[in-house]
Structure formats: structure tokens, C-alpha cells
């Protein structure tokens, strides 16, 4: 742990990050123009299609309805991504099966007609019916996204000012770069992996920045404290940064690991609750990506970059403190 030589390998780290970001940008742009958008937007942002089944609980049991629907969908090779149950409507109860926009609408209409016919065999009341609908969702999250981005930018600016005051300008610059790097990496990995992006992704982006800020606090605080030690101050800038990076690696990894562990726990238990893996898996994968990016960005990229900044800063400081001495 103490033999990490991150500073000397900055070029490798920068190349890795640049490649991931470039690939993400390329994949995103290609998908933007040739497929379904820069990101693979999840169910909560996408247009979708539904098959709605209204029935009277007096005539039908819930299980009869779900079995009938599952049978029809299986026959027509249709797979839905979520099922909603609506109780006590004026029509009795309703099951709403949601399908992605790309699903064959003719097949869905056929399935709805077949379910409708099967239902009416038993109960000819008009309250029992099945119908197909196409739903175009108006993106309501744009305002949240705009204000969220403003808040995130303000938070990053605040962190920059705070670090510049509390630590040094070089630390503030490194922290700023760490935030931007981690966010860019997270966004690029989302574009590459095509994990469906839902409303929860912005929450993870915020968490990504928060964990980075915590990690930077650990790193720069260590650096500030260690520099007070005479022996440590005599070390080369690279060695100083590497030592502090190694010392702060544990708390950073622990923070991200705790976060990842909670994400996995959420996945396991909510999958059991939802009786489906698909609805829960994607946000949790986002969370895991976020944790990985935070550890890599904060513990590997930031020290490597900071050592350069620090060297430049120290050199600048040395030059500007030497000059008056020469005049004397």
C-alpha cells in the first residue's frame, strides 16, 4: 500500500481516462445520431406502449388475469418491462403491462385483442376489457436537470474556493479537476455500457461528486499534516503525494465500498420485493459504476495530477521568494 508510485505513472492514468472518455463520447454520439440517443434512456424517461386489462374482481381472480396475459404474451413472444396494478378504479381493477417503444405494436394490438376476446368469453360486461395504448412521455425532468446542474456547478465552485483557502491553490485545482474527471468518466461509462439512464442517475452523479469531495479532503488533509513533519518535507514532491495517496486510500476505498455494499444490498432485497431483477439492477449497476469511478478518480488520478500541480506551485513559490533575496 505504501509503495504506490502513482505520480510517476500519471501519463498512463491520463491515457486510460482519456481513452474511456473518448470512447464514451464516440459511442454516445454514434447512438445519438444512429440509435436511441446519447444515453440509453430508461423506462421513466422513454415513450412506451401498454396493454391495459380492466376486469371486475367479482368475475376474475388476479391470478387468472395475470396467467391469461402471460400466456398471450408468451405465444406472441412479447416481453414487458414492468407491470402495474391499479386497484378500485371505476372499472374494477386494472393491470397495466408496459412494453418498450420498440416492441411490435401490431403484435401488442393482437395480444390485447386476444386477451379481450378471452375475457369476454366468460364475462361479456363492457367493464371487462383489454386494450392497447401508445404512450409518448413528455420529458418532465428537464427543469430538474438544469437546476441540478447549476447546483452541482455551484458546489464544485464552492469546493474550489474552500480548498484554495484551507489548503493551497494547487489542491483546489486538483480537486476541481478530480470532480470534472470523475463526472466525465461516470457519464462516459454510462454511454459505453448502455445502462438504462433513469431519474436515479442524476442522484448518482451528485453522489459521485460528493464522494470525490470527501476523498479529496482525506488526501489534502494528510498532505497538509505530513508536510509539518521535517523528514517528510524533505521528500520529493512525487514521494510526498504518493505517501499521502497511500495513506488516504483506505478511507476512500472504505467510503466507496460501503456505498457499493449498500447498493448491492438494495439490489438483492428490492429484487425480491419487486419479484424482478430488471427494474432494480440498472440503478444499482449505476451505483457500482459510481463507486468504482470515485475510487479510481480520487485515489489514482487526483494524486498523479496533483503531484504535477504541486511541483509547479512549489517551483513558482520558490522563484518568487528567491527574487527579493537576490536584490538584497
Amino acid at each position, binding site marked *: 500500500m505504501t509503495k504506490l508510485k502513482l505520480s510517476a505513472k500519471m501519463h498512463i492514468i491520463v491515457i486510460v481516462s482519456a481513452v474511456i472518455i473518448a470512447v464514451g463520447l464516440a459511442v454516445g454520439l454514434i447512438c445519438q445520431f444512429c440509435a436511441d440517443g446519447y444515453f440509453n434512456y430508461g423506462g421513466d424517461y422513454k415513450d412506451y406502449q401498454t396493454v391495459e386489462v*380492466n376486469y371486475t374482481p367479482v368475475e376474475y381472480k388476479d391470478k387468472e388475469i395475470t396467467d391469461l396475459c402471460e400466456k398471450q404474451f408468451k405465444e406472441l413472444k412479447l416481453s414487458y418491462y414492468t407491470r*402495474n*396494478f*391499479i*386497484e*378500485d378504479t*371505476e*372499472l374494477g381493477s386494472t393491470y397495466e403491462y408496459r412494453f418498450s417503444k420498440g416492441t411490435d405494436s401490431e403484435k401488442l394490438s393482437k395480444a390485447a385483442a386476444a386477451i379481450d376476446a378471452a375475457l369476454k368469453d366468460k364475462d361479456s360486461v*363492457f*367493464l371487462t*376489457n383489454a*386494450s392497447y*395504448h*401508445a*404512450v*409518448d*412521455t*413528455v*420529458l*418532465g*425532468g*428537464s*427543469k*430538474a436537470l438544469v*437546476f*441540478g446542474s447549476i*447546483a*452541482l456547478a455551484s*458546489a464544485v465552485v*464552492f*469546493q474550489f474556493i*474552500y480548498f484554495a483557502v484551507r489548503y493551497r491553490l494547487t489542491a483546489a485545482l486538483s480537486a476541481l479537476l478530480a470532480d470534472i474527471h470523475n463526472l466525465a468518466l461516470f457519464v462516459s461509462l454510462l454511454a459505453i455500457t448502455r445502462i438504462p439512464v433513469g*431519474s*436515479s442517475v*442524476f*442522484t448518482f452523479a*451528485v*453522489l459521485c*461528486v*460528493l464522494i470525490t*469531495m*470527501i476523498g479529496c*479532503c482525506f488526501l489534502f*488533509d494528510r498532505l497538509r*499534516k505530513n508536510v509539518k513533519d521535517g523528514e517528510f518535507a524533505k521528500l520529493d514532491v512525487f514521494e510526498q503525494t504518493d505517501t499521502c495517496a497511500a495513506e488516504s486510500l483506505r*478511507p476512500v476505498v*472504505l*467510503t466507496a465500498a*460501503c*456505498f457499493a455494499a*449498500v447498493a448491492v*444490498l*438494495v439490489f438483492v*432485497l*428490492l429484487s425480491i*420485493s*419487486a419479484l*424482478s431483477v430488471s*427494474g432494480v439492477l440498472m*440503478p444499482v449497476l449505476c451505483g457500482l459504476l459510481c463507486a468504482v469511478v470515485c475510487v479510481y478518480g480520487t485515489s489514482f488520478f487526483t494524486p498523479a495530477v496533483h503531484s504535477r500541480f504541486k511541483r509547479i506551485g512549489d517551483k513558482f513559490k520558490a522563484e518568487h521568494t528567491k527574487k527579493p533575496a537576490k536584490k538584497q
Partner: protein
Amino acid sequence: MGKIKSAIITAIIAAAILVLAFFALFSWPVAGTGKVDKYNSFASGIHLGADITGEAYTVLYPEGVLSASDYNFNMPEPDTDDGADKVDEYIAKYSQCGSVYIEKDKLEEHGGEEGFKAKVKKDAEILSKRFGQKGYTSYSVSVVDGFTLKVSVPSNMTYAAYSDPEYNSAARSAEQSAVAQTVKFLSYSGGLTLRNSEVGKIHDSELDNYILTPIKDNVNTYFKGISKYAKGGNYAVKVKLTDTGRERFKDISAKVAAASSDKNIGFYIGNSQLLSLGCESEIDGKSFFISVSNTADDSAAAQEYAIILDSVINGDTLALDYLSGGDPEVYFTTPHLGKNAPVYLGVIILLVIVAAIVYSVVKYKLLGLVNAMMIVIYSLAMLTAIMLIGIQVTVAGAFAAVLGLALLCASNFVLFESVRKETKKGKTIYSSVKSGYKNVLTTILDMHIILIVVSLMLALICVGEIAKCGFIFFIASIASYILYWFTRFMWYVISSFAKDKFKFCGFTREVPVDD
């Protein structure tokens, strides 16, 4: 500290925790009410988001549009005398467009199928903007089959109302009515007019009142902006006027104030009166307030009035009438995460708490118990704060609270490690604790300052779920920092019982070798 003093303090704090935990976690029928009234715990009184308790949704049908079910239901009986003719007339009146039936007159009026669809789409965008200002943790406005609108918002139910629908039917129907009211207000179509039943420029025979402004005037130019205003538990709508508006209001308010019986300026959206401004004298100012009272929820009503009025004065008027069929009917759906999602989420949070307690006890022995006490206090404090402030909790919000718990544990673990390092230098426990705290003081302070400010920024600048998460994390960060210092106090109090302070903390004292 003496052992007796320490025992008393520990007992008082433990009792306080137990009492708070009892009220926070357990619900029971209130004695003496024949089990009619029920005390709902703090936990079951927290409002939950759409991902945990499901959505409330309504389908808005524009005037002249019927669903297939309604079309069949309204079909005249063919068995009566002129039944066959009525059936023919009824069938001829409507045109089937996909899954809905539309009156042919209306279809023609709005430019055929495509024109109708375009208007519905435009209205969906306006409605989406209006609902966006409500600050829901999640919501959606969708166009269904091109001709109807589906609005989904969180059901905002508490666990008590969600888990026991029959017992808490009043709470459920209150939420249902609140959503219906919101949808109704925000779906008003038409432009803004100012009216009075006695004085005015133009008489409206349909509503039997007068429009107060000249026909050539665009009323929207009178207003700079309309917003919700709250002070001391009273709610109002604040109307800011332009120079033109100020002059015009001075004129019309003077006329209305001079009227014999009706001294009110009615704010109408289309044909519906939204607000009434009482005028006892002339209004001459850059802004004025219209108070909102006697509604089920004055705060929500003031917000909704402000949203709809602000939307209309900015030119966002709905082209179609969605309320011709009466008030919207609201239905609840089961959450996407399953019917038992709140229970599972509770189990997850409980497991995280137990894991944190077990880890700290295993690693730091009795000192871990001090940390465990802080974890319990943190959990109860968060539960109480969220319930009292009325924050709607989603899975992301619960995550923010858990992150706060991680912050508290991380702060304490960093501190404990720092103290352990000091003990290895051969110091006494009191000296080690003092130095340990001093060593990590700035790290912990910096971390908390940054997180408190950032979460406050998220809470104040963002909207929707992120704002709620930011607010939860803001409370969590403050709680974490207070409890971090409370840890030191409790450490001092509880360790008074222990003979071997090092053993109490799970540390081993290194005795320096004397050269």
C-alpha cells in the same frame, strides 16, 4: 467522572433513547377509544415517494373525447321506442380514433386528427412545465394514443395509509383529493380575465358578470410575475405588476371599491374563477397579495394558484378543455418495486444499521458500543426530523440518509484510529483521546463543512428528488457532526465504569522502552 454520576447520565440518555424509539417505531390503538383511534409511529407517518408506495395518476380527456368504455356505456338502449334512431345518431356523432371516440364537430373544430393531436401534444408540454413547478420527487405527463393525457405524480402516502388501506381510508382519500385538486387547478384552460359582477367594460352573458379590462388590452402585460408567498403560517399569492398593470389596477380597483355590493376582482382562467381580490379602496402599488385561506391545504393551494396564473400570464394557455367531464378521477398504482417495497426498504436500512453496529463493536469492543449508541441516536433523529419536516422519502432519499450514517461512522472510525495511533506512542488514554481529536479535528471539520454547504446548495437550488435528497443529507451532515462531538462526551461518561480504559477501547498500550 465518578461512577455514580456516570451511571445516572448513562441511564437518563438510555431511557430517552428507549422512549424516543418506542414512539418512533411502534403504532398502537389509543386506549379508551374502543380501538377506533390509532397512534401511528413516526416511521409510519413519513410520506413516501412513488418508487416505494406507487403513483397517483389520472387520465385527462379533452372535451368531446371518450374512452371506448365510456362510449359503450353511453350508447342509447336500442330496445326503446326511438332507440334505433338514437343509436344511429349517437354512432354518427362520434369518430373512432384509435382507442378513443371523438365528437366529429370537435375534431373538425381543432383541425382534424392531426390538428387535434398537435394541440394535445402542446398542452402536454405546458402541463409538464406546470407540474414541474410543484417540486414533486417524480412526475410524468404523457400523451396516450395521441388524444388523451396521463398525469402521474407520487401518491405521497404515509406507510400507515399504504399498508392498511381500510384502517387509514381517510388518509388515502385525503391524498386522492389533494392530487385531484392539483390536477384540476393546473389543468385549467383558457386565458386570464379580471371580472366583477357589478362594474366592468364588457358583459359576459354566459357567466353573468363583467370583464373589467378593455377588450383591446392583453391582460398578461399587466403582470411581471406571480408567486406563492408564505409568512407565519399564512399563505398568499403575490402579484407583481408592470407599470401598465399598476395604472390599470389603480383604475379598476377604484371602480370596484366604489361598487355597491360586489367589491371583488375575480381572477378567471377561462370560465373558472380561481381567486378573488377584495377591494375596499384603490390599489396603487408595484405588487399586492391575495390571501389564500379555508382550503384543505392553503400552502398547496397558494402554490397551485401561483403556478397556473404565472403559466397563463407567460402565454402558456391550454388549447383544449380537460375538465368538461368534471373533476379528474385519481387512481393509485402499486409501486414498481413491488407491493412490499416499503418493508424491504425498511429491512435494508435496518440491516445497514445492524452491520454498522456489529462492525464497530467487533472492532472497538466497548468503545464500539458508544458508536452504536450514536448510530441509534442518529437513526432516531433522522426519522423524527424527516417526519416533522414532512420530507417525502424515496429510495434515493433513504440512500442519502444512509450516506449520512456512513459519514458519522467514518468520522468516528477515523477518530478511533487516530486515538489508537496515539496510544501506540505510549500515552495515557486521556492524553491519546485529546491528541487523537486534535489530529483529526480539521479533517472532520473540513469534510463536514463542505458536505453541509454542498447539500444545502442542492436543497435550495435543485428541484424534485435531488432537492429532497440534498435536504435529507443536509440534516444528516449536521446530525453527524453533532454526534461526532457527543461521542467524545459519551466515551468519557461510559468509560468511567471501566478499570482498564485501553481494554474498553480494544486498544493495547505500547510501553515505550526507556533507553
